[in-house]
């Protein structure tokens, strides 16, 4: 019984955390004969309908947005895994000239917020013709490249490689492996847990990214989910039933991903792993 106040507070905060979504779901399920501005507000729809979902589904290319988001997030994750692991390996395991300078140069990128350099990043992307007005493929590359590697990923992989005993590598050298084979066949399989962490958090970050795609994208066919959802406001101006239904629809994929991977997020083992 003495835990009761604790539970009451946690239930209250949990409700606050999900209430905006509950209210959005409630609105999305109300039919045209029900006043969505009714006082007092009704959580349970009296004129229950799925029509808003089918309506918004017919007018908006959610599958297209979803595929675009998958391509961008998938490409971003893949490049981050490869590039971070490759860069983390020599920083952890090799001695070379300029190692300290390289290390601090990478560390310095943590201090440069994308928001402060987005204008030149856009100008460079234009110059490299990596925009959707050239073609869709170039558009995807342009969406991915500025986020293809991060200092966070490199340091995460460096940490992981530092944790592997030196004997593992020495055994490889005795067997006649070169640096690349040691990296690919011996070390990489041993850092799979860190790769998984990097993949999951890069995916979440890329999936929710809004600023960059809203700067570079010009074609509706290239919209990722966040850009497409923001666009619902313009398409349906004050039709909150449709806007609500579309917002909820767009959230389903990431919700499934979160529930499937929840231990990575809430265990606390990967403290501070989401982009800062």
């Amino acid at each position, binding site marked *: 019984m003495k835990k009761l106040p*604790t539970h009451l*507070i*946690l239930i209250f*905060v949990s409700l*606050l*955390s*999900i209430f*905006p*979504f509950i*209210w*959005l779901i409630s*609105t999305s399920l109300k039919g045209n004969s029900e006043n969505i501005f009714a*006082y007092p507000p009704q959580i349970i729809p009296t004129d229950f309908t799925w029509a808003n979902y089918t309506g918004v589904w017919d007018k908006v290319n959610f599958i297209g947005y979803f595929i675009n988001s998958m391509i961008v997030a998938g490409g971003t994750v893949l490049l981050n895994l*490869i*590039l*971070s692991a490759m860069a983390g390996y*020599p920083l952890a395991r*090799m001695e*070379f000239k300029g190692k300290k300078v390289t290390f601090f*140069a990478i560390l310095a*990128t*943590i*201090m*440069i*917020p994308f*928001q*402060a*350099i987005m*204008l*030149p990043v*856009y100008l*460079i992307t234009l110059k490299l013709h990596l925009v959707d007005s050239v073609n869709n493929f170039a558009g995807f590359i342009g969406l991915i490249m500025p986020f*293809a*590697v991060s200092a966070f990923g*490199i*340091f995460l992989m460096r*940490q992981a490689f*530092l944790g592997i005993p030196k004997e593992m590598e020495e055994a490889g050298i005795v067997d006649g492996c*070169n*640096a690349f084979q040691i990296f690919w066949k011996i070390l990489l399989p041993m850092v799979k847990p860190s790769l998984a962490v990097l993949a999951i958090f890069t995916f979440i970050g890329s*999936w929710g990214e*809004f*600023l960059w795609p809203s700067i570079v994208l010009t074609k509706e066919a290239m919209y990722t989910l*966040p*850009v497409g*959802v*923001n666009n*619902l*406001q313009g398409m349906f101006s004050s039709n909150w039933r449709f*806007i*609500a239904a579309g917002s909820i629809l767009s*959230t389903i994929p*990431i919700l499934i991903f979160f529930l499937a991977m*929840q231990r990575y*997020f*809430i265990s*606390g*083992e990967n403290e*501070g792993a989401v982009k*800062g």
Partner: protein
Amino acid sequence: MYNSKYAPYLFLLPAGIILAVFFFLPFFQTVWLSFLDYSADIYNPAFAGFDNYINLFKNPVFYKVLWNTFIYLFVAVPILAIFPLFLAVLINQKIRGVTLYKILIYLPVIVSIVVAAIAFKWLYADQGILNYVVTSLGFNSIGWLTDPKYALYSVIIVTIWKGIGYYMIIYLAALMSVPNELYEACDIDGANFLTKHLTVTIPHIMPTIALVTTISAISAMKVFAEIYVMTKGGPLNSSKTIVYYIYERAFENLDLGFASAMAVVLLVIVMIFSLINIFCFERNKYQL
């Protein structure tokens, strides 16, 4: 080849190219652009010396957005440093339903900021559910996003709401490292909940509190999507912050020099926070 002295450089090359093209080059270009004047001819900018900076510091809107950004910090950061700690202490007990609480409180972190902003815009609607609560308590309804007095705070609430779960998990990880014997000693002494945490928990996780303070300050400096989706910086610039103003001047007014001068100001502020963060609180993470 791979065993040669070039091997480390080959491994670093791909990441190096990306960082060079999309971080270092734009970084120097931001500084360079801030000395150019694009107003006469956008394709042939003229060298302008410190004109953009002079214009910036003469511009009342710049002071407004700077002030708004600091309000953002002063409101959001203390709440995000303290409230999630309180929740983490509550959740870090032997109680039922811990996983469910964690999932529900973490949910806003995972959901797209665009969807979160739309959900709040709906709560904040003129005849929306929040104004129902306000009017049934006997007050006049509030223009949450339309009244210059409230718009900034309404947006800050969304940022706070979306960050609580994230910082709670960081605190939970830190709490696990507090030795249990210290709490047991407190129990023997008959200390109550408050003294127990003031004397044991807080001193023990002070570094984490400092870390959360700096990272929440850095992310508050970078807020964009909430403002873009909910208010577009309005009404009357009341909810406009530095990043949003940079975006507006760069991509809507095509005032590249002015926007870059402001970006340099943002860079300097964020770099100060980051340096504090890296050298004081995250030394272990980078093994400095």
